[in-house]
């Protein structure tokens, strides 16, 4: 198998590291060859805090993926998240040179550069400029202006940026393995590629990837990305709340959350309790089921409400037709669809990767959405720019969304 048909996605998550190996087929489809995993250590809120440890875990996951898929991994697409990631929309504008009246590829590049001529903090770097719409001489809704006649090309972009050093941390972690980094992708952008269909993006949809350390979101209207970002709150907070409220260690709180927890209130019998197993030789501690669920409900509801308020700073949330799609490990929480529906006041679905070939039920896990999304993203990018040399040149300045 030619190695350049391989695409590999890596998510360095707060809870687990996930490596997905995919293979591009001659017919343009993509198949998953294998998924490697390792528990994550040294990562907090989506960011590496202990470099050495995190690197070991990534290595472990890569080796696992190599064994499962029987390939050698040389280069990867890696996702990034973290509370430092921010976004905004901006319009770029260029005049087509006098000696030419047809818009060409160069103008497309130039208008993108122009859209980035806004000040972001000096310590930040651009991650993505995702095209929303082109306008040619004031005409709206142009999808592909190349070859059109016009004098003025304008374009609306959704621009995602983050703190350079922190993004570099992730890159460094991979490079020291050593593996080559093909590209760095905002995690929710990756997840959305496999959680949503094109139709859902067109109708308008919100993807919320709730992982262990962060809640990453991305909002589509009319097929274009309008809002995106990261809240540094996730499943760890739910577990920590349980641990502090019930005064039990994190490990037990985590287990309790997974096995017994629910976001839904009022479903328990009055006085229904859960017996905590205990190995100290004393009778186990009893806790009320409704208490556990209240702790979870308060936290998850708060995350949704915060996110909603954040999104409401702009009008786009009102144009969502398909609803909200919750993915990431926390989407497995019992009753989360119900709570999300209530909080966002729209239909809510728990979702995992589905818009990809070769998915067997083993991969139907919402915790894999980001890593699987990465290979779909990679494939789309590569399809858009077939020449590898060219890809290097434009680096991150491409526009798939």
């Amino acid at each position: 198998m030619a190695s350049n048909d391989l695409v590999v996605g890596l998510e360095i998550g707060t809870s687990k590291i996930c490596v997905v190996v995919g293979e591009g087929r001659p017919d343009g489809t993509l198949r998953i060859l294998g998924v490697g995993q390792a528990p994550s250590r040294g990562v907090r809120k989506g960011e590496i805090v202990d470099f050495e440890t995190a690197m070991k875990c990534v290595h472990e996951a890569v080796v696992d993926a190599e064994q499962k898929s029987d390939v050698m991994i040389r280069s990867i697409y890696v996702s990034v998240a973290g509370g430092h990631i921010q976004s905004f929309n901006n319009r770029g504008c260029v005049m087509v040179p006098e000696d030419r009246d047809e818009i060409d590829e160069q103008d497309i590049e130039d208008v993108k550069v122009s859209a980035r001529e806004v000040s972001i903090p000096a310590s930040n770097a651009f991650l993505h400029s995702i095209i929303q719409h082109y306008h040619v001489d004031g005409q709206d809704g142009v999808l592909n202006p190349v070859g059109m006649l016009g004098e003025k090309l304008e374009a609306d972009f959704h621009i995602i940026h983050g703190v350079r050093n922190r993004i570099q941390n992730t890159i460094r972690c991979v490079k020291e393995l050593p593996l080559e980094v093909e590209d760095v992708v905002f995690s929710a952008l990756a997840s959305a590629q496999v959680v949503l269909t094109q139709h859902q993006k067109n109708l308008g949809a919100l993807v919320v990837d709730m992982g262990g350390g962060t809640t990453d979101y991305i909002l589509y209207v009319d097929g274009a990305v309008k809002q995106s970002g990261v809240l540094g709150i996730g499943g760890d907070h739910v577990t920590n709340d349980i641990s502090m409220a019930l005064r039990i260690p994190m490990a037990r709180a985590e287990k309790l959350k997974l096995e017994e927890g629910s976001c839904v209130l009022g479903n328990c019998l009055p006085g229904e309790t859960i017996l905590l197993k205990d190995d100290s030789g004393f009778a186990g501690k009893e806790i009320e089921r409704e208490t556990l669920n209240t702790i979870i409900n308060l936290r998850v509801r708060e995350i949704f409400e915060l996110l909603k308020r954040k999104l409401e700073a702009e009008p786009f949330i009102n144009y969502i037709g398909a609803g909200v799609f919750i993915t990431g490990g926390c989407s497995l929480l019992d009753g989360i669809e119900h709570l999300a529906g209530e909080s966002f006041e729209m239909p809510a679905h728990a979702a995992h990767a589905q818009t990809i070939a070769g998915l067997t039920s083993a991969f139907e896990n919402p915790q894999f959405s980001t890593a699987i999304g990465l290979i779909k993203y990679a494939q789309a990018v590569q399809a858009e720019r077939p020449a590898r040399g060219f890809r290097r040149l434009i680096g991150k300045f491409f526009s798939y969304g």
Partner: protein
Amino acid sequence: MIQLSKNYTLPEREEEIIPIKIVGVGGAGANALDRIVLDGMEKADLIAINTDVQSLASSVAAHKVQLGRAVTRGLGAGGDPEVGQQAALESAEEIRPALANARMIFICTGLGGGTGSGAAPVVAQIAREAGSLVIVFATLPFSFEGKRRTAQAHAALGRLNQIAHAVICFENDRMGDMVAPKAGIHQAFAMADVTISQSARSIVNLIQRPGLIRIGFDDLLTALRSENGRCLFGFGESDSDNRAHDALRQALKNPLMDKGRMLADAAHVLVQVTGGPSMTLSEVEILMQELNRQVNEHTQILFGTAVDGRMGNRLAVTIISSLRAEIDVASDVAAPLPVPAPIWEQPQEAAAKIDILPQPPVLAPAPAPDLIPFEPPPPAAELPPPIAPVEKSRSRVIMPRKKSEPEEEPKPARQKFGQAKQEVLQFEPVTRGRFEKSEPTIIEGQDLDVPTFLRKNIRVK
């Protein structure tokens, strides 16, 4: 040796991290370790060691060692220290690599059961043989757990005292005083776990933080060492206008401090003050003066401070000390078990040449112009045999010199909702838990790492 930096703007150095391992032995040890993880600990490797596979499986420690596959078959030691010891000896070759390459090893364990009491001395011995400095945090059982457990615990404590460089001993009965009378055994254990976590973290931070005033390891040991002694521990934190005073008062209120009364009898007291960048020299001065009033003139105060950006407006005081046992504990130490100890020799020889300070000693003899060295160090890392009487030395409180900077603007009062929080948290210091090492998530002016139910002031249970 204590050195004091002249000003508070000393740039934080990228200092060498000292390899530290924290080991939990037995079920109680595993729980204490979990608590340490929960409270955030990234400057040390955590290792769970147990006979009981179920407990190991649920532990969050990164490294785990199962003891006595053949002897206990994955079950506990059934409360029998003999079995616990056999299990540890069987697995000595698995323990050894897990403990390798640490300058300092903390062992957390609950004495009284089989694994902790039987295996912890073996683990401590292996740690000593690896050339590490070994400090044990041990709990003694509640008296209602029965005479047998108490006797087993004291026998184990006696052995640990011979092997470890220092043993910090927490009496569960006293922990019991810290929780409400009808709170139940779990809360008392949880309280013990919090206290162990808090003191382990204070010590690790004392060593790992690029402190302004550093405490040497020998000083640390001096403060901690005293056989069969009672541990004094206090932690206080405040962000009030008078935070230095309030934090100290809270620390002294800790029941393990006996309202500060016992402090008067301590020969050595270790104090660490941690604050955000806004911490001022005068605050540290206030604190030291007040503390000075609590101790007698012979007490040696070992003092460290550190600036930690994550502290925000808070200032925290940790006080650790130990008292020599008078009559109570020491006298009922059971006759030491006939030590079979095939794999261990008497540890004493190894003791003398422990070298824990990162080389070159970070702030030590370097001719940094902004450091004022105080008093020569006490006789270097020589460890007197544990029986040696604690030497009464002159009071050696190192006070910061005249303040060189204008005093901080008084901060606006901030009491309103501290009150409510305090009520729920009771004795538990507000920690950032798992999120300690990460940047706080502040959205809409709220610290979202604090549990939602606390911020919304909703009483659970």
